[in-house]
């Protein structure tokens, strides 16, 4: 099976410090991959390169064989770790914005999820709590019928009750031939939905295997193993 996202010798430096150092990685369709590592390990740098927000210093990152470009952006649905929506806009305006720019955006799916979460489409983002704004972003991202969903810390800013809804939303809404790359350090909450695990530290991949293999080999949960590997 051809990888959907492939990194070959990918490196990125900020000044003298390597944020990514010779990263080789494959993400396959139909899999949910957890990109796990402590703060500053290079997760967000990798994600930014995949989304064309940074250019690598060496190596390649391709999506369906293509370098990051408008063509790859059209098939990636990206949830950054911050609020990227204009606060003056109404939710309905933002839905129109996504529908205008993304051919794969499903307006009905978005309104259905808004209704489930009791979010009024006529509310402006600036009147919402941080958690609600994050839910709106997630709804927008998961309302696309993308080939690759890249979710950077999707549950970090919401309460535990909302986390379950968000994770269910993620699982329910992605097409089975699509892939999800999910970056987080809240492993307990996401462990059950992950198919593959990638551990990253100091910009290097230190472990990449299926979640089942790691659990069977180590006799531990992914969370326990993570704590052991990244113990301070």
């Amino acid at each position: 099976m051809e990888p959907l996202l492939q990194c070959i010798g990918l490196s990125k430096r900020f000044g003298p410090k390597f944020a990514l150092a010779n990263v080789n990685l494959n993400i396959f369709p139909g899999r949910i991959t957890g990109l796990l590592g402590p703060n500053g390990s290079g997760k967000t740098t990798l994600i930014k390169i995949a989304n064309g927000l940074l250019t690598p210093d060496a190596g390649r990152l391709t999506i369906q064989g293509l370098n990051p470009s408008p063509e790859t952006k059209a098939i990636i649905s990206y949830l950054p770790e911050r609020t990227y929506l204009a606060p003056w806009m109404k939710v309905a305006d933002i839905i129109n914005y996504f529908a205008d720019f993304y051919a794969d955006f499903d307006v009905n799916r978005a309104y259905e999820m808004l209704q489930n979460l009791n979010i009024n489409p006529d509310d402006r983002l600036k009147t919402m709590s941080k958690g609600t704004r994050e839910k709106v972003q997630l709804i927008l991202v998961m309302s696309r019928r993308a080939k690759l969903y890249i979710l950077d810390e999707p549950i970090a800013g919401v309460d535990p009750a909302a986390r379950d809804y968000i994770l269910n939303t993620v699982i329910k809404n992605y097409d089975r031939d699509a892939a999800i790359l999910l970056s987080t350090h809240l492993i307990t909450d996401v462990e059950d939905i992950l198919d593959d695990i990638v551990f990253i530290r100091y910009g290097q991949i230190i472990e990449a295997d299926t979640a089942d293999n790691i659990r069977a080999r180590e006799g531990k949960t992914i969370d326990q193993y993570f704590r052991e590997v990244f113990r301070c």
Partner: protein
Amino acid sequence: MLGKILKYEFKSTYKIITPLILAVLVLSLILRFQLTAMDSINFNERAIGYQAGLGLSIFFYIMLIFATSIVTFIVLVTRFYKTMFGDEGYLTLTLPCQPDLLMNGKALAFFIWNLAISATCILSFFIIGFSKEVLGFIADMFDGLRSFIYEDLGVAPVIFYTIIILICLISIIMGIYKIIMCLAIGQLSNSHKVGFAVLAFLGTNFAVGIIDMILSLVFQLGNIGSIYSISMVIDDYSTAFFRTLIFTLVKYIVYTVVMYFISHYIINKKLNLE
């Protein structure tokens, strides 16, 4: 895609800029009525209240013109910065279109608003001062200019006007790309992005000033304002005039192209979002 980019640029800015434009036009009408009322009554009867009212309107009018220009500038620069290099850049720059198209779409919206503000000022002038006498004065002025162009410069007026209009338009475009370039340079800093953008702006103006001075010395050419001194040197007024106009136009085009490519390079290769 350009149409969609423009749609959202105007949607996010019209609510602030359009009321200002309308306010300028409404105040122009008020001024017009006040001036007409002043003309229709005898000098002796002109009450102090009329004069004070007129003075106040003129004061507000001038303030409003300044405010419209400054607010429009701030709104457009802030919008560009936030949507390209702020948090909103994470959405804007992951839209499925070339970063160049985003940059140029925003620059085009900037340009169109600039033209709209200029057109508003001209329209406002006509609203306040429109009369047969003013029209006659303008017609006389253009007649004089026409004979000057034909007789002293020896060229067709259409060529002269085309060059002048091109210089005006290119100078607006150059100003826009200068701002974009400085914002792009500023975002390269990991902290104080806005401060670095301001420094880049001051540095660019300084560099352009130095280059202008060197070019003037080397080619004995300068800005439109220094035509008289140049004509003294090369002893031919019309040649000096045209050389300076063409030189200015070419210089603005070159500056614009350089600023465009620096912005293009940074936005495509050196993005540094927070």
